[in-house]
């Protein structure tokens, strides 16, 4: 670390700062906590109310599902995996950006992560909650879902440990646990700040209980730093492992289009790609609504755009190498599968996928696009759609043309498939609105640590 702060080369070269100049530790605390202390804005009721209506739609679809069974979905033979797995992979992928931002960027000492890690982690949790729902309801008899866990039982039954589906159970539950711990431990000092700032007695009690007696002593900080770093170390392999295991769900079988060795790294890149798209989708409106442009600056939007571009190119590499290997392998089924994807009955999905995931992100090469939040939001929306289409194409096109033409079929989601999917979007948004209303969406104490540096930068400029 430099002993005396001075403008860094990246600032001298005219990059936007990670924190707008002129802030002091107290102005940072005031401005971020004011979002909560200011009271509930009127639009919030509408936004939350609308999202909650979608949650009710989810509850309705689930009730119908439990009463009538998975027959209400579009699943059949040959396409026995449909929306449930597509949406599971879509949601779990979105979560990955939060873990990458909070764990890997922390270990890489990328201080621009500071203002986006809190809500990116929240996004991870909510996305994992939505994702975790799908396998549970897909088992047909969700009240027996605990059979997925290996436990000694009188039936003498164990899960199939060679199946990646059981690895999924471990991977996703570990992921959910570590993400929750990471997010909550990171919140504790800020919960204490909120406890000290709220007026209402009940709020004080709730924040106080959640802050677990945090008083900010040197001893507390020491323990906190140690725990946080250890959790970051634990969470880092999860960025790679969770989506690799998800990709094994497909790749360890023999289905053409699923059985490809490139799947693990390509799924991980896709997950980070989708995750950063979702972070941008949320961050851009939030910074505008809550006037957080000082904290989530153009530097953040640019950097996230660059990560999105890089991971998007890895995804493009994955598509390319799949096509090349299908032809290089000389395997007629692989070849047919690729041609069927590109020219078969689902070709529109494939071409839309190429447009959304490969062509649209190329806009990020242009600096003007990178520094225009509205344009970046549009690109991010393309990617959100594209990553859903990617999973649709992988799941459906591989299954709907079985090895024998007599077992060919078509697949489409029913209205209940869509209702469930839209319902989980509602669940995600509802949780998000609750989060921004009641918890500091930017880490106050971590922002304070980057204040002095930018202060003195201003002085020397």
């Amino acid at each position, binding site marked *: 670390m430099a002993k005396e702060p001075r403008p860094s080369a990246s600032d001298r070269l005219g990059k936007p700062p990670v924190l707008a100049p002129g802030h002091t530790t107290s102005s940072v605390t005031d401005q971020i906590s004011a979002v909560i202390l200011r009271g509930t804005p009127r639009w919030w009721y509408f936004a939350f109310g609308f999202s909650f209506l979608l949650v009710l739609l989810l509850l309705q679809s689930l009730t119908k599902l439990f009463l009538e069974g998975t027959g209400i979905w579009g699943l059949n033979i040959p396409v026995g995996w449909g929306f449930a797995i597509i949406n599971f992979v879509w949601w779990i992928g979105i979560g990955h950006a939060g873990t990458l931002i909070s764990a890997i960027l922390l270990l890489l000492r990328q201080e621009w992560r500071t203002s986006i890690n809190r809500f990116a982690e929240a996004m991870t949790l909510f996305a994992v909650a939505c994702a975790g729902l799908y396998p549970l309801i897909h088992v047909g008899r969700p009240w027996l879902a605990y059979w997925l866990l290996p436990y000694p039982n009188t039936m003498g039954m164990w899960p199939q440990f060679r199946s990646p589906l059981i690895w999924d159970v471990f991977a996703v539950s570990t992921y959910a646990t570590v993400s929750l711990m990471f997010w909550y431990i990171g919140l504790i000092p800020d919960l204490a700040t909120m406890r000290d700032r709220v007026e209402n007695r009940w709020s004080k009690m709730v924040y106080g209980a959640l802050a677990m007696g945090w008083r900010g002593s040197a001893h507390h900080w020491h323990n906190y730093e140690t725990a946080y770093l250890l959790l970051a170390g634990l969470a880092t392999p999860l960025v790679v492992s969770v989506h690799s295991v998800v990709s094994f769900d497909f790749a360890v079988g*023999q289905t053409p289009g699923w059985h490809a060795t490139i799947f693990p*790294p390509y799924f991980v890149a896709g997950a980070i790609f989708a995750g950063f798209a979702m972070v941008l989708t949320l961050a851009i409106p939030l910074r505008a609504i809550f006037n957080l442009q000082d904290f989530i600056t153009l530097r953040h939007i640019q950097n996230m755009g660059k990560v999105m571009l890089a991971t998007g190119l890895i995804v493009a590499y994955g598509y390319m190498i*799949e096509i090349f290997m299908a*032809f290089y392998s000389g395997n007629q089924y692989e070849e047919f599968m690729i041609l069927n994807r590109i020219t078969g009955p689902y070709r529109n999905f494939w071409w839309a996928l190429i447009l959304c995931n490969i062509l649209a992100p190329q806009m990020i090469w242009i600096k003007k696009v990178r520094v225009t939040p509205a344009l970046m939001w549009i690109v991010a929306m393309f990617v959100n759609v594209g990553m859903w289409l990617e999973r649709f194409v992988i799941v459906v096109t591989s299954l709907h043309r079985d090895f024998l033409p007599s077992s060919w079929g078509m697949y489409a989601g029913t209205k209940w498939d869509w209702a469930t999917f839209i319902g989980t979007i509602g669940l995600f948004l509802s949780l998000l609105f609750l989060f921004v209303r009641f918890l500091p969406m930017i880490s106050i104490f971590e922002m304070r640590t980057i204040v002095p540096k930018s202060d003195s930068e201003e002085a020397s400029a």
Partner: protein
Amino acid sequence: MSLEPQRFAAPADVARLGRNALVVGAIGAAASVAGYLSDPAQFFRSYLVSWLLWLGIAAGCLAIAMLHHLSRGAWGLMIRRVLEAGSSTLPLLAILFLPIALGLTEIYPWARPDEVAHDEMLQYKTWWLTPGAFYLRAAIYLAIWSGLSFALNRLSQRQDETGDPGLFRKMQTIAAPGILIYALTATFASVDWLMSVDAHWYSSLFGVYFIGGQGLAALSFVVIMALYLAKREPMKGILGANHFHDYGKLMLAFVSLWAYFALSQFLIIWSGNLKEEVLWYKERTEHGWNIIALGLIFLHFVLPFLLLLSRDLKRRGRPLLWIALLLLVMRWVDLYWQAGPAFSPHGLTFHWLDLATLVAIGGLWFAAFSRRLARRPLLPVNDPFMEETLDHE
């Protein structure tokens, strides 16, 4: 701290090391020629593996240099000259590709017309695997990499001479598409040069695995050179424990990445258990090759991974040197394990030509490398990020 380029002239030892390497290389080359005359098939097969090792270091240096230009981390500036000198040897390696081009029929089954005539799959694969297309593609890959390294090295030299702070943007402009082009060409090169020694086998992860292996080899080589330079003026006291801590972390990341790719490929192919895929692993896990496979698991992953977890070992020079040397050796073992069973599926064999060609190419390569390294100051003093890098304590 004064930042005159003259202060950072390479120590005289580097040039001496290069002269010694040239002598060793010449002896190796003479032995290789003798080996070629007595057993041409063995010569070409040994040569391929040796060439791929040194090529991987040079190409890996180019890739890491481009990553450094894009990420602008402090870690890269300290080793940039080593990376640049490493990548500048790519034209030499392109010339050293010639023996492979001459020995095509001894190395690749798809290049033997009699074998293709009896094998439907090889006939099918002639859309990709023919000698003409192979030569053309190799020329393209090697020309592109040489061109990228030439362009970046020239900009870097201009930065030394003029001190224009805007030059780093130009380097980024080359490095961003450069890294993409590199990833694509290196993938296809891995298919052509290494995967097709067993022309039936295929794996879509192979290119990534190959690129990761090259990156690890290059990084290990760079760390060895950095440790060598850190003991001598002018880098003594500038390259310190903090830098090696960072390089150790990068090595840990690359070692983990290598293991991740290796495990993913193995697990998917083992699980699928398809005849056209799994035979590759079967050949490589029996008749003595299984010992090499186990060696890879423990010495290419488990041991270096555990050692690199330690903060202390990363910061002390000597242990890190041994780990880097181990990883370089294991890179060769990995290449040998991938190519070897295609040539001798019935048992693990070693031939003295494996060593002779390795020394021959390595000696010549290192001589060229050290000549380039000695020619320029050891730090890119005019880089706009240099000043704060020197504060990185």
